């Protein structure tokens, strides 16, 4: 019984280690990155030989985790919310096959989009795949629900999705840990071929099994000690909280609740508890971090029956994360500030670091593109997305991991010239390589800039899967080696860089430029570490 000060992410990681984890599989993504990093830096995990190397993307991560589970061991797979879009194929079908060793999939959602391009609520994915979802309300629960979650997964025979949001993932609190358990022995399933070969005839049987398992999932939610009913005298209104919304509600009632409260942290919805609240109260207020997931289920399409308030009727704003203040307003309480933000305060957006290689790449690219009318630059996800902001204003799009290459191809197919793609090394290996093959097969007249800083920089400098082999990967996929052009993005090389960019834009076919210089942040960190 030791107490530690843990980020939500660290609590998840320590719980997984303590529960007998054999491997974590993940691709970095805010706010999930620290889970895997914690396991990488854990002495116990190293001693036990727990797998913790980064995967190339979320899909490879989840498939590998499923393979470990197949072999009977406990596996953890972590990603940010949009990462589950990448892993969705495996995710949906792992619900069909079920698992062998316990499998927990962590989705770290980012409402308010602190570091993301949307605020999708992945509880919908859990429902879509029809598997249990856990949504802890605090760091201690995050620890306990992961620790117990592997057993839950093994007992039910299915993967479990555990959802946290930014404020849980990146907030510290005291956490009491539990005794460390042994790892599972390797033990492949006897009925493996019936479960893991999803040929139509077998898949139909598996789907019947998944449907039949649903009542058990609901029963598990109803029995969960983490789903709690708090009775209170004023039955005019009943309140449902999910995940960390419970904390904001508690903040507003330091001396105890005035209305009955149902705290939900495990899904599918605990039906008995929801029915009790609806029967006892006149109306329901739903407080949930994310989309109106519970609210929509309660309301239904017609919205008849008990009155339900929440994000859909504006009791809580439809977008953005919850705050103690937005919850106070929904409860009819006053929110008071004594001072306002003075007009003199200006926005301070993030920017590329001084000395960053992406800066030199953009400066050279911008200079050359001034020579062309109608040039479009399709950007991607990473630090270089900041090239959208002044002084560069260098990109025209940023949609999803890898989209730069394929959008540039589509635009070129439509007649755009020059069509340029800018993508980082880690994003290229994550999701750019398949799109590059499309371009190779048609010798598409686009110029792809793989701005290689030899790391996954935006998330804090994790290993990048393609370091040292970007040119070889491109050649292997079939890019003509004469049009794979390397360069070192430095001011002194500007004229040479511009000449290469010009030549390759003029080339009537596919070109890949690889400006390569290490991330200034990782260099500084390495120097600092070497000093100590």
């Amino acid at each position, binding site marked *: 019984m030791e107490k530690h000060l843990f980020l939500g992410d660290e609590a998840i990681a320590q719980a997984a280690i303590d529960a007998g984890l054999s491997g974590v599989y993940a691709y970095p993504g805010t706010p999930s990155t620290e889970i895997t990093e914690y396991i990488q830096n854990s002495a116990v995990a190293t001693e036990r030989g727990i797998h913790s190397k980064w995967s190339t993307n979320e899909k490879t991560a989840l498939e590998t985790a499923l393979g470990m589970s197949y072999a009977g061991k406990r596996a953890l797979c972590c990603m940010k919310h949009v990462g589950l879009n990448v892993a969705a194929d495996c995710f949906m079908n792992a619900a069909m096959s079920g698992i062998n060793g316990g499998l927990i999939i962590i989705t770290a959602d980012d409402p308010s989009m602190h570091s993301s391009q949307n605020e999708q609520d992945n509880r919908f994915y859990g429902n879509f795949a029809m598997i249990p979802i856990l949504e802890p309300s605090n760091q201690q629960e995050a620890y306990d629900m992961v620790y117990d979650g592997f057993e839950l997964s093994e007992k039910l025979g299915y993967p479990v999705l555990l959802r946290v949001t930014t404020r849980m993932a990146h907030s510290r609190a005291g956490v009491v840990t539990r005794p460390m358990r042994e790892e599972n022995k390797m033990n492949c399933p006897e009925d493996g071929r019936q479960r893991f070969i999803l040929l139509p005839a077998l898949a139909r049987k598996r789907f019947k099994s998944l449907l039949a398992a649903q009542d058990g999932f609901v029963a598990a939610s109803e029995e969960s000690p983490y789903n709690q009913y708090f009775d209170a005298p004023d039955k005019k209104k009943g309140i449902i909280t999910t995940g960390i919304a419970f904390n904001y509600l508690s903040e507003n009632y330091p001396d105890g609740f005035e209305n009955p409260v149902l705290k939900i942290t495990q899904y599918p919805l605990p039906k008995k508890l929801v029915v009790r609240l609806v029967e006892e109260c006149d109306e329901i207020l739903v407080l949930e971090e994310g989309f109106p997931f519970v609210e929509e289920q309660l309301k239904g399409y017609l919205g008849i029956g008990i009155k339900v308030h929440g994000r859909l009727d504006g009791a809580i704003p439809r977008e953005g994360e919850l705050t103690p203040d937005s919850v106070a307003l929904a409860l009819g309480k006053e929110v008071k500030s*004594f001072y306002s933000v003075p007009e003199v305060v200006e*926005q301070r957006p993030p920017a590329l670091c001084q000395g960053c290689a992406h800066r030199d790449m953009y400066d050279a690219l911008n200079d050359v593109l001034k020579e062309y009318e109608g040039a479009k630059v399709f950007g991607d996800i990473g630090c270089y997305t900041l090239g959208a902001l002044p002084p560069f204003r260098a990109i025209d799009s940023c949609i999803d991991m890898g989209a730069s290459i394929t959008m540039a191809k589509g635009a070129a197919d439509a007649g755009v010239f020059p069509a340029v793609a800018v993508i980082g090394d880690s994003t290229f290996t994550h999701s750019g390589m398949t799109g590059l093959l499309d371009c190779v097969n048609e010798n598409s007249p686009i110029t792809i800039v793989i701005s290689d800083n030899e790391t996954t920089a935006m998330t804090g400098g994790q290993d990048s899967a393609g370091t040292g082999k970007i040119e070889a990967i491109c050649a292997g996929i079939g890019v003509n080696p004469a049009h794979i052009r390397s360069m070192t993005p430095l001011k002194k090389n500007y004229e040479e860089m511009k000449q290469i960019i010009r030549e390759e834009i003029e080339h009537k076919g596919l070109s890949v430029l690889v400006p390569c210089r290490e991330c200034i942040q990782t260099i500084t960190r390495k120097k600092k570490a070497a000093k100590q």
Partner: protein
Amino acid sequence: MKTDIILSGVGGQGILSIAAVIGEAALEEGLYMKQAEVHGMSQRGGDVQSNLRISDKPVASDLIPKGSADIIISLEPMESLRYLPYLKEYGWLVTNSRPFINIPNYPVLDKVNEELDKLPHKVILDVEAIAKELGSVRAANIVMLGAATPFIGIDYDKIEDGIRRIFGRKGDEIVTMNLNALKAGYEVAKQIQTT
């Protein structure tokens, strides 16, 4: 005992090292705490803040409600003003006076200072200058922590212990330098608090 603290600054300035010392001291005191941090994109030179809540009772929300922060500790003067809606009526604002200018439209400093002047309880000091006098610019954050210490609700010597524990593995010299930085900041704030 309950203290709500907002730490603010610019990504890369190191507000989290201040939070780490306070957190260490709070944990050692057996207090409850929650600390919401910012990771990710804004760490690249954008505005960053952290909510730090310490109490002798369990803390519910990771975020501080508006109008209820006891202190704003800021490593940058304009950034200290960004969080004023969260400050209590008689709360303290403790800020570095030296601007961090990485945007083209940074306001005229006098205008920033005018707004700071309007506040009833504030400590404004040039932590870099004080740290430089002591011999290490890298201790500027700890000068700032010292200036905030009278308002945190944890005894000065407990904060000193926190520094010893956090910097201990870096050697005695670093510990002593940081203890001196803490003291220098503390003395500036003490003087302002009593006048």
